[in-house]
């Protein structure tokens, strides 16, 4: 679906990280956790290509006055990394954006009652909030949030409000455990005897480590990937990743945009990548 959205709020939630709320059609409420939107930052040719952002949250605002229709909204969480996100961070309430979405395949929730271990690194938390919101309906959920410093660990309060038990780790020790978030994840898996399943989004190195942990301990692991993409609908073939069986002779490229961004970690090739 392609639609024009009006920005309702755009605020810096931590140095360099922004959270934007915008209006959306009711269909957006059906977005599955892990799906994403392609945002055209402005109607000019610079930046030219849309930027992909995981759906952080969707919901409905109460009517502004008696008799008014409730307004569905969409939220994204983003880090300012370049020109496009830099421009996005300068936009204000009432500015208009052109949005495509929801795109891609989302997470599979897994069985009710099973422990759900959510692992997020930095802005990788973006698609995990909506996931947590879904999962807490029928399962105990634990979040493992990591970052370089405390500034890279985002929106923990929001997760706690959902009833998620949150664990944090930072490389400089400024928040939570000092070190990598995967260490904290492993401690939990040690304690439970490798129960439950893992959902992860974050930098490639973290995903690779999480995929390794899942494989070693036979814990089902779903990962949400990022990729440079131009279209978001499987046409440009810019964002592909490699399936397990990939080799130069037997290519197995998957589109992050349409076959992902969520994959079972066991479906993908991690060695050498």
């Amino acid at each position, binding site marked *: 679906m*392609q639609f024009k959205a009006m920005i309702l709020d755009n605020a810096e939630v931590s140095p360099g990280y922004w959270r934007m709320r915008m209006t959306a059609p009711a269909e957006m409420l059906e977005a599955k956790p892990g799906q994403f939107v392609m945002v*055209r930052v402005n109607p000019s*040719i*610079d*930046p*030219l*290509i*849309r930027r992909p952002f995981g759906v952080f949250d969707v919901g409905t605002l109460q009517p502004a006055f008696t008799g008014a229709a409730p307004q569905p909204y969409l939220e994204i969480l983003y880090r300012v990394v370049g020109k*496009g996100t830099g421009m996005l961070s300068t936009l204000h309430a009432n500015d208009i954006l*052109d949005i*495509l979405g929801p795109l891609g395949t989302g997470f599979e929730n897994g069985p009710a009652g099973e422990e759900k271990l959510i692992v997020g690194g930095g802005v990788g938390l973006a698609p995990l909030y909506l996931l947590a919101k879904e999962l807490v309906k029928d399962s105990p959920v634990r979040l493992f949030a990591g970052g370089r410093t405390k500034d890279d660990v985002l929106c923990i309060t929001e997760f706690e409000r959902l009833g998620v038990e949150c664990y944090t780790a930072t490389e400089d020790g400024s928040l939570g455990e000092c070190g990598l978030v995967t260490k904290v994840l492993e401690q939990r898996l040690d304690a439970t005897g490798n129960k439950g399943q893992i959902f992860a989004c974050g930098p490639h190195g973290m995903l690779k480590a999480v995929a390794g942990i899942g494989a070693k301990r036979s814990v089902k692991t779903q990962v949400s990937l990022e*990729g*440079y*993409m*131009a*279209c978001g*609908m*499987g*046409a*440009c*073939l*810019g*964002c*592909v*990743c490699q399936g397990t069986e990939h080799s*130069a002779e037997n*290519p197995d*490229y998957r589109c992050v945009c349409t076959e992902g961004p969520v994959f079972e970690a066991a479906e993908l090739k991690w060695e050498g990548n």
Partner: protein
Amino acid sequence: MKPAMSVEIGSLKLRNPVMTASGTFGYGEEFSQYVDLEKIGAFVTKGLSLKPRAGNPTPRIVETPGGMLNAIGLQNVGIDAFIQKKVPFLRSVNTPAIANFFGYTPDEYAELASRLDAIPEVAALEVNISCPNVKQGGIVFGTDPNCAASVVAACRAATKKTLIVKLSPNVTDIVEMAQACEAAGADALSVINTLTGMAIDLERRRPVLANITGGLSGPAIKPIALRMVWQVAKAVKVPVIGIGGIMSATDALEFMLAGATAVQVGTASFVNPAAAQEIAEGMEAWLAERNVADIKSLIGALEG
């Protein structure tokens, strides 16, 4: 008064001059929920080879000012899977589908041309002799007029369908290439494919693309494309299809003034999946506002 919008490319009649460019529109189906395919003139499918092709490692694309570089490396499903999985959709759409293809030898080009010739759902063929991102993926044929002529002649002998040749801008003299292809039997020329370019990540001191170089597309290349269309259109009798950074109806109409009979919209479809349809509608509105009765009257009508 509703202006006449149809144009002809060889024996192919288009309801309007707006087509989508190969590699930017999948096999048509990907865009069908965003674009009314029956509002555009034709669509060109992703470049096909005899065998499936993996394409290049990632990163394959990067944005640059006013454009993007891509080095996909002609990843495609191959002709067999195309026939099996993609052609059924083409049958369901009342808009000509043009199959873009490439080979590694003139014989392979001819074999593909002959197999595509046998598919009724394929309205016309576009020969890619100009991909900049794979070593044998056409560019050798696209930079030497004699090689280009041998490929075009081989394809010409293998098909009766309209044969379009897509030219590379990465040559010293595109007119010489155009004339060689025309003489070898091309029914039309697509001008231009992407320009070879490069992007560098300063902090990492590395090229951004895994392939190091890639093809530049988007509005950044429009002035070059316009100049090349103008040069080629003056030098050949066959129709020219203008391509390069077309983002709007006015861009498309400028290409027609420069001598293009039709245009292809490429990168714009990534930015706005409905771009081709909006451009076709915008062109018609432009003509209607100015009481231009027939879009054909604009072809090569540049003054001064």
